[in-house]
């Protein structure tokens, strides 16, 4: 599986946030998008998720332009934004009902992606009583309803404790091993060490970055 991002541009008002974003990534890898605050990381992810429309450019998955076919895009791209994309008053099961049919939910809970995320443990718990880690696992579970080959995650481990981060990142590893492509934005050392490649956005352009585990060097490059 090959995802090609070509010449993506985006302007807000008079400010061109993304000037010419081009890169490609293969299945079974995790790509980390780096950059300072306000550099356009979340904007790029929103464009790739289909939330924002780019001023130009294309997103090609195995030869299909995902921006041109909405249904294809929805089926092949999972998106976990910052925040909690869940209905707080309802249980995990109710939230999953929005994305899964009853039969599919049962299958996935019995040994599929929902079982892997351990969602069965808190299926009847209302979201507002869940820990940050549970909420994030449930959010990923919702995003995985179509078993998409591409998973976009905007700072997936922000504000989580080490145990929760470990859970999320171990799922990312499993997803990669199954041939999935993860694109995540991050400032977090643990997340960065899970990535196989790093791309740095600066002044609206994207470039390869060799992350050596030294945060000080990264800070200097931002």
């Amino acid at each position: 599986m090959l995802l090609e991002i070509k010449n993506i541009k985006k302007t807000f008002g008079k400010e061109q946030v993304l000037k010419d974003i081009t890169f490609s990534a293969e299945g079974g890898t995790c790509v980390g998008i780096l950059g300072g605050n306000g550099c356009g990381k979340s904007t790029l992810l929103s464009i790739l998720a289909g939330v924002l429309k780019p001023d130009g450019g294309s997103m090609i998955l195995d030869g299909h332009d995902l921006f041109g076919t909405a249904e294809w895009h929805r089926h092949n791209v999972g998106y976990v934004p910052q925040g909690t994309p869940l209905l707080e008053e309802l249980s995990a099961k109710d939230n999953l009902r929005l994305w899964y049919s009853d039969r599919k939910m049962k299958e996935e809970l019995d040994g599929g992606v929902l079982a892997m995320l351990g969602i069965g443990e808190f299926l009847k718990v209302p979201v507002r009583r869940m820990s940050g880690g549970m909420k994030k696992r449930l959010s990923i579970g919702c995003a995985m309803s179509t078993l998409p080959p591409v998973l976009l995650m905007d700072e997936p481990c922000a504000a989580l404790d080490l145990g929760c981060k470990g859970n999320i990142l171990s799922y990312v590893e499993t997803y990669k091993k199954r041939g999935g492509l993860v694109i995540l934005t991050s400032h977090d050392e643990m997340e960065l060490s899970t990535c196989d490649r790093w791309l740095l956005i600066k002044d609206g352009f994207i470039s390869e970055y060799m992350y050596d585990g030294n945060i000080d060097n990264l800070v200097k490059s931002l």
Partner: protein
Amino acid sequence: MRRKKIVYAGLQLKRFFRLFPFVLIMSIVLCTAAGLALGKMIRDDRTSDQKKIMRIGIAGDTSNKHLQYGITAVQQTDVTQYSVEFVPLEEDEAKKEFDAGNIVSYVVIPEGFMEDAINGEVGKIKYVTSGGTVGFDTKITSELMKAVASLIFDAQRALHAVEEVAIDKGTEDYDLRVLAREGSYSLIDTIIRRSELFEVEEVGVSGSSSEESALVCGILVLFLLLWGITCCMILSVKDDAMSRVLYSKGVGPKTQVASEYFAYFLFMAATLVILTSAALLILRLTKAALPEAITVVLRSPVSVVFGLLLPILAISAMQFFLYEVVNGVVNGVLVQFLCAVGLGYISGCLYPAYFFPEAVQKVTSYLPAGAARLYLSGVVDGKPPLSGTLILLGYFALFLILSAAVRRARIKSE
């Protein structure tokens, strides 16, 4: 995709009905408070020793001394619930004072009115009051009629008393007794025998419901306005992440808003219709000396309950829009409360509308709360106004379109 939209609407409904126990407690508190306040207001109004002073301008030909006696008598009479103060004015002055709100209405007596009345002709009195003083004209007319009846009765008794005194004194003055008798006949001929002494030409009066039923409709609308606060826990706390994910999966802002509003409206309508029906049923069963205002509403409880649906449709759309604009429980409650009190105040839900200048009354009749109040008054009278229906439907559509636009802007924000 269709399944997702239906499930989303269903889940929204489930979210709202999770709130039901909280809403039930809050509604009992609100209903009790509103019921006590209304009961006290009406009871005070009926039993108060302190009478309301109503200043009425009187213009035109008041030169006739009998008419002046009559005006003085009405002013001094004690049969009315209201103290009426007639202010002699020229017609132009009366109009200015009325527009300034210094007098509640004015009467114009045509030239030669009394002479025409004595000659058996029915004169036409022009009576000017504002559209907002619903029921005021009938109240004043009935009070004046009571006073006139009392005056005629007393005049008749006086004439008989004169005759009796003359007989007791053994006077042989035939002329005095004949004079008293002729006076009686004259009174009967010119006044009592005639069913109509004058006609009233009402200018600018609209609406036929009583002031008290208008007050009840006002309180119902205020209740609707405040009711939105009960859903603050669901609607004011927002995380755009959910909207963004839904959007990325093909559930756009219009569908999101429509589903959420549908659930909100159903919840509001169901709880309000249940509570109003229960309240009306209890009032009907108790049958205990109910104020006129309540009995007016009780005459057609089913139409009143169903009549609430259109105001709920428009007002809940407005509340939904306000929740869409703000974020956080404190902000949400504050905005809803200020909006409810502000709109309720100028729309005549707290005080009768005629307390405000005519220009304000005209504007507020086009505002959501004012239009809802006038529509409900129409429902109580069995004549829901078409204009009110259209205004409320217009607000419903407008607020939903605005809500969808705000939601779209939030999803697309940087």
